[in-house]
């Protein structure tokens, strides 16, 4: 073993000192860099808001609230009333939630409470995979599989066999492309979001909650209903709102199956329009600046609505996970 040089200690002290100074500086650079990356996220939200509203401004300035309140969309005449599209967005999303919510919560309860352990992974995986399917593939499947199925079997069944044609909601001829088709496609697309959030919050419910209910003599269902679901309620509502956010802004699949007709009709069998499909459909054909700007104004309204829905949804989900952390 070689002995250390006499001045080793001094040299090493110098090296350390230099190194410490250098790393303090490089640490600052590193922290500034990662902070800059983090700042991109709020920056992006602001940039999106500014860009969308800048594009929409000419239409808002010229048309004002008539974009929201009138239903006459006439490009040549310069009338841009998007009420049918707003109506269609709300109705198709509502139909989607009515179909998807019970299913999604059922799946979540199944997976968190009752599933045999060998089924839990595959079923959870298959449901989650629904979220990975591109929306254009849903649209393609919707056009060539779902719509014929609805037109030939489901719509006549609902209208005639169940006599729902007596209500305004299922009246009239069974077009294929329709509000109902859009609602069903959106239900399939929103389902994985609702079920995965619901499953997470259900699993976050403490064991003691369940054991207490069972010890008091509750059946397994009563345990779910009275002890588990109330505890997880706001998280589940948050999950439903996340699904709603998805459904409100979904573009391609809806554009392909809803029929794209700017009319307000009570019947789900009739074609309709949504804000997103209106923009997607007419953007490439927009000839004059006002038309383009009116489409962007519809985009701005969609942006605001989905921003609010998502913010509330996240807040609800967080309030449950925070409680779990305590």
């Amino acid at each position, binding site marked *: 073993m070689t002995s250390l040089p006499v001045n080793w200690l001094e040299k090493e002290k110098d090296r350390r000192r230099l*190194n410490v100074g250098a*790393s*303090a500086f490089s*640490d600052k650079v*590193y*922290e500034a*860099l990662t*902070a800059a*990356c*983090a*700042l991109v996220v709020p920056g992006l*939200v602001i*940039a*999106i808001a500014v860009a*969308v509203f800048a*594009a929409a401004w000419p239409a808002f300035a010229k048309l004002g609230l008539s974009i929201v309140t009138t239903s006459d969309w006439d490009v040549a005449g310069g009338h841009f009333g998007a009420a049918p599209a707003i109506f269609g967005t709300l109705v198709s999303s509502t139909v989607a939630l009515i179909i998807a919510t*019970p299913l999604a919560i*059922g*799946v979540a309860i*199944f997976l968190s409470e*009752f*599933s045999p352990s060998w*089924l839990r992974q595959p*079923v959870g995986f*298959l*449901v989650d*995979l*629904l979220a*990975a*399917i*591109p*929306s*254009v*593939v*849903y649209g*393609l499947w919707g056009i*060539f599989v779902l719509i014929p199925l609805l037109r030939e079997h489901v719509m006549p069944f609902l209208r005639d066999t169940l006599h729902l044609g007596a209500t305004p909601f299922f009246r009239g001829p069974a077009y294929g492309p329709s509000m109902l088709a859009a609602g069903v496609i959106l239900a399939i697309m929103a*389902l994985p979001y609702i*079920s995965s959030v619901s499953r997470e919050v259900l699993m976050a419910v403490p064991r003691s909650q369940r054991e207490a209910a069972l010890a008091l003599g509750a*059946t397994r*269902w009563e345990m779910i209903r009275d002890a588990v679901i109330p505890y997880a309620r706001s998280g589940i509502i948050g999950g439903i709102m*996340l699904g709603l*956010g998805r459904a*409100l*802004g979904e*573009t*391609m699949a809806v554009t*392909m199956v809803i029929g794209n007709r700017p009319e307000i009709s009570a019947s789900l069998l009739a074609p309709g329009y949504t804000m997103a499909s209106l*923009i*997607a459909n007419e953007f*490439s054909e927009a000839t004059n600046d006002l038309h383009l700007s009116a489409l962007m104004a519809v*985009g701005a309204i*969609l*942006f605001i609505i*989905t*921003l609010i*829905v*998502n*913010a509330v949804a*996240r807040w609800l989900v967080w309030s449950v996970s925070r409680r779990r952390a305590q």
Partner: protein
Amino acid sequence: MRTARNRHLVSGAMIGLTYLAAAMATLPLLFILFHLIVKGASSISLDFFTHMPRPVGESGGGMANAIVGTLILIGVASVIGLPIGIGAGLHLAEKKTTPLAYTVRFLADVLNGLPSIVMGIFAWEVLVRPIGHFSALAGGVALGAMMIPLVTRTTEEMLLVVPTSLREAALALGYPKWRTSISVVLRTAMAGIVTGALVAVARIAGETAPLLFTALGNQFWSTSIREPIAALPLQIFTYATNAYEELHRLAWAGALVLISIVLVISLAARFATRSRFGAPVD
């Protein structure tokens, strides 16, 4: 009568209903995959990957340009989305409780839920309108912007799994903080971060709506990021809504290829995590 017998019957029925819900929820996926394979597989040949689209009316032809276009768009989006997302994730994992961290976390989640069409409008207003023409770059930026919040949140989650003792050990050995973060913490969580990146790529690979405003699509062969570029999802949309039967066939084939890409990436993401942590994280 709320007799014990009735209550147990109700309980059994409700539990049965949750089984039914699970069965019904898995059906759509199986249906969609079934139809994709039945209708798409017959139209897939070597030509589909190597040939350009033929003019309407002629049979045959492929989607070579759209497949390459989609890969280029994914590349541009990843170059933008991954470094920023991972950097932001590092920041969130290291500065857990600052007001900035809370804000970023919340806004990233909100951004994740924004409709992709809004991202398209944003990229169009910023990169297409001022320049005067559509481009692959604008498409990549729109998709990259969609990746940022997703990668941010998954990176943060994966970094939080790394034991503090590891970080402390590195610091005790005299590593500067940044070396500790990059060479120790980030490397330990690498498998999870790769998973997050793959999930983000899988999500944007099939996006169509933002591309309508940015990449636009292109009938011809183009690999320039300054020109409009073809993309698989755009092509599927155009063909599916066209009246020609021949194009419907190509749309199904394209959808099968697209879903294969997405599923392979999703499965890879799942296994990348499983090998490291024992259980999938998503």
